């Protein structure tokens, strides 16, 4: 199925389901029949369906549809749960501590989900454009290798050129850059000025170098760019994985509160 067709189908089902539930809620409200019980149970069911996506990921060996299909269901069911939430809560702000906390948790889960969806649509293309695609787990080791390599090049340059110009420059400007991930936030927002400033300093050094030193400095510049890509990959992939640190813990917390809320509502209604 083509992506556009899949999206249209998903949106159509979402809109129809939302409309149907809104109408049922409207009919129940108009007839003083406790619509919150219906919309609450529906919302709980959808939330449990959404959590099954995580369970599905832990059971990769079972033939339970493709993960991408689950992802699509998760996205549209997530949007549907937000619709159900607003049908359930209505045009008012929750009052009690339990319900206010639950509402904040739900909105936190929903907002983090939407943010995650946006990140998963926006970051990968930027990472592809950035340069070599790297496995996230390998980035620390690669950064260490690059750091080691640039240090070797700089040390060798002293013997080769009988000059400490590059070594001094490395010591002053480049060692902190290679020692750890840098400019992470700038990479996240697509702000390249910090690294360009560093490269311009490298370029400014060029006039004081002889041809041999210039050749060595070219190697160093390549390693600066490689380190920049490493930082970019770390920032981007870290973001791709980091939003789940908000989304999933909030979900667990929300489920606890939702179960208590649901049980009380069922018993007291």
């Amino acid at each position, binding site marked *: 199925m083509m992506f556009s067709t899949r999206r249209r189908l998903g949106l159509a089902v979402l809109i129809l389901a939302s409309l149907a539930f809104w109408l049922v809620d409207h009919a129940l409200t108009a007839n003083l029949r406790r619509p919150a019980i219906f919309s609450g149970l529906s919302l709980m069911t959808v939330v449990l369906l959404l959590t099954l996506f995580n369970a599905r990921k832990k059971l990769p060996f079972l033939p339970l549809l493709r993960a991408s299909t689950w992802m699509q269901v998760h996205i549209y069911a997530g949007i549907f749960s937000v619709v159900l939430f607003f049908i359930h809560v209505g045009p008012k702000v929750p009052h009690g501590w339990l319900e206010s906390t639950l509402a904040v948790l739900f909105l936190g889960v929903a907002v983090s989900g939407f943010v995650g969806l946006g990140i998963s649509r926006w970051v990968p293309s930027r990472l592809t454009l950035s340069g*070599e695609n790297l496995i996230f787990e390998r980035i*620390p080791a690669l950064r*260490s290798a690059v750091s080691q390599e640039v240090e070797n090049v700089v040390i060798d340059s002293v013997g080769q050129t009988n000059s400490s110009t590059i070594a001094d420059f490395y010591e002053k400007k480049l060692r902190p850059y290679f020692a750890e991930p840098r400019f992470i936030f700038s990479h996240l927002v697509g702000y390249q000025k910090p690294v360009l400033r560093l490269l311009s300093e490298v370029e400014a050094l060029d006039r004081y170098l002889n041809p041999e030193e210039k050749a060595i400095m070219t190697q160093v510049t390549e390693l600066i760019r490689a380190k920049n890509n490493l930082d970019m990959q770390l920032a981007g992939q870290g973001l791709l994985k980091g939003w789940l*640190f908000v989304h999933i813990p909030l*979900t667990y917390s929300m489920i606890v509160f939702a179960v208590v809320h649901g049980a009380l509502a069922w018993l007291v209604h």
Partner: protein
Amino acid sequence: MKRWLQQFSFKKSAYERPNQTWVCGRTCSGAGCLVGPDAQGNCRATTECRPLRKGDRWQCTRAASQGGPCPDGPLPDGACCRTIPKCIPLRGLRSWRGLASLGAFAVSLALILFVFGSSRRGNNFLSPGGLSASHAFTGSKCSDCHPGLEGPPARWLTGTNHLATDGRLCLDCHNVGSEPFRPHALPEETLKLLTEAVLGRKPTGKLTASLAVASLASRRHDSAAQQLDCAVCHQEHLGANHDLRTITDMQCQSCHSVQFSGFAAGHPPFPKEPFTRRTRIIFDHDSHLKHHFTDAASAPSAPTSCVSCHEPDLKGASMTLKPYEVTCAPCHDDQIKGKGAVKIGLTFIGLPRFDDRSLTGKFGIGQWPEDAEQPMTPFLRLLLAADPKVLSAMGTLGEADLSDISKTDTAKLAAAQTVAWGIKGLIFDVVTRGQDELIERLTKSLGRQLTSHEQESITAFITSDVIRTAFASGFPRLQDEVINYRTKGEAADTELMPSPPLAKATAVKTAPPDVRVNLGGWYSADASFALKYRPRGHADRFLTEWMNLTVDTNKTALPAVAGALFDEVAGAKAPGLCAKCHSIDSKPDFRVNWTGRRPDRMEHKFTRFAHSAHVSLLEGQGCQTCHSLKVTADPDAFASAYKPGQRDAFIAHSNFGGVTQTSCASCHQPAFVRADCTTCHNYHVGRFQSSILKSAGFDGKALAPVAK
């Protein structure tokens, strides 16, 4: 030239396992071992390879990704020569995420358990929201409204009480009638009748899509039989500013068999004859407007508009009558005081004429005024009836003519004698004992205790001197005769006493006896042997209280006498002319309507209307904008509802036509003036006092409802 940092050949790079909980502590430095930590996070590194013996030689088996076989090779004993230093394994990213999730779950669960174990915190935390301002004082704990939610929340689940709101608790403070949980607080039978009355009606407008959808889940199929808890409509826990009475038109119609979209679109038309009850005060607007107010003699005193006689009540809701002095007195006060009337006074006690020729000897009645010719008034009969012997004698006599009794009819002679001595005894007792004697006799005859107000009113403060004066000349030896009759049983022979001569005419002009009491009071005419009462004018207490006491004859001990008395005081020509304007009902209950309709704060009708809010909107026609005078061919139509003997209040012929729904809908429509159901309709209907008064006892302990 672009540099590629990653190697994907199995000989050049290790296989990554991001799902594992622990990773090698030296991964960051690029020197992570291939074995990696175990599931518990312990480092398992020993040597870089496990040498393999081939023939008599040990060969290095270090992986290609780690650099392949090392140049030093295995030791002679087959051990690897390159020992890997132990590391401190690190948690993987997924593991941290799992820990964060578990932590969030645990913290949430701990918070919930903490709250469930604490009564006060549990109540505060689990409350779904603040109570409305009107219930704020009850919000100290959940069990105030939910009987099952007593104590800490953990106990709720093990308790036996129902956890839901109990509407019966609402009734501790709110009174909405005897059937509070029925729709409209009405009995099932009444609801069924109301439903049947509208089943044939079809709404004139189309249902909106919204209402059509809502009707799919309508309650109307079982509406008459169902019970509705207070919380169905009154939603709590929505904050201090929430109005508990908030309800939509669709919600109002959820039980209704015939639904419509709005007041201006489908609301049933108002009834053409809205006044199902005749007016309490008999006032024919038609004849007054057409004839009396235009009459030259009355015109100066006549009202000039509706508001000359009508005014809004204190709440501005109903229109009420202004006081008598403003409305009727200018034209009718003299009539009521008896000006020009044939019958000005009312005979309270009058002496009848007895047959003196038959009542002789052992049937003697002693001294008796020769000129006594009064009929036995109902008042006298009532007073005599207090004595069982006299009551029996009056029964024997029936309607017999006391002045002509056959000598051979000894039973009637004896009865007449008993009645005569009863009258003399009555006068003697009242003269000697005064008002107490009257009250005792009336209490016995009416069959119930009289209130102070009633005692004062029905005796009109009569004194023994008045009675003595009225009958002294007819009974010169009253005391001796009555004592002898009562103590010795000696009935003195009949002796007719001539009336004293009338005073000679003098230069001083003496006014007639009834004129001498122009302001009202007791009097007696010369030689008439009748004690009379002249009403003091409008709202005379003597007349009104006697009418009140006898309107329902079944509530008296002597219905026949009470009925005659009522006819005497409420007759068309009776002094005071009370019944000329004050209608008398026997349906729905017995009452004399002394006032026009007054707002009843206990009455909660389906429909309400605030007159004062609309007065400023009227132009030109004023009240007649809505209340148009009926044009009827029969000029007596109005009066027919009040003809003698017609005491059913619900047989009515109003002077006015009904208010039309279109006149209201001209303003009350969407985006103009409120037109929702509760603008004009009440839900809780019936007669009840909404608020229940509570008071602490004088001992300061009890705080219990006083009245419901």
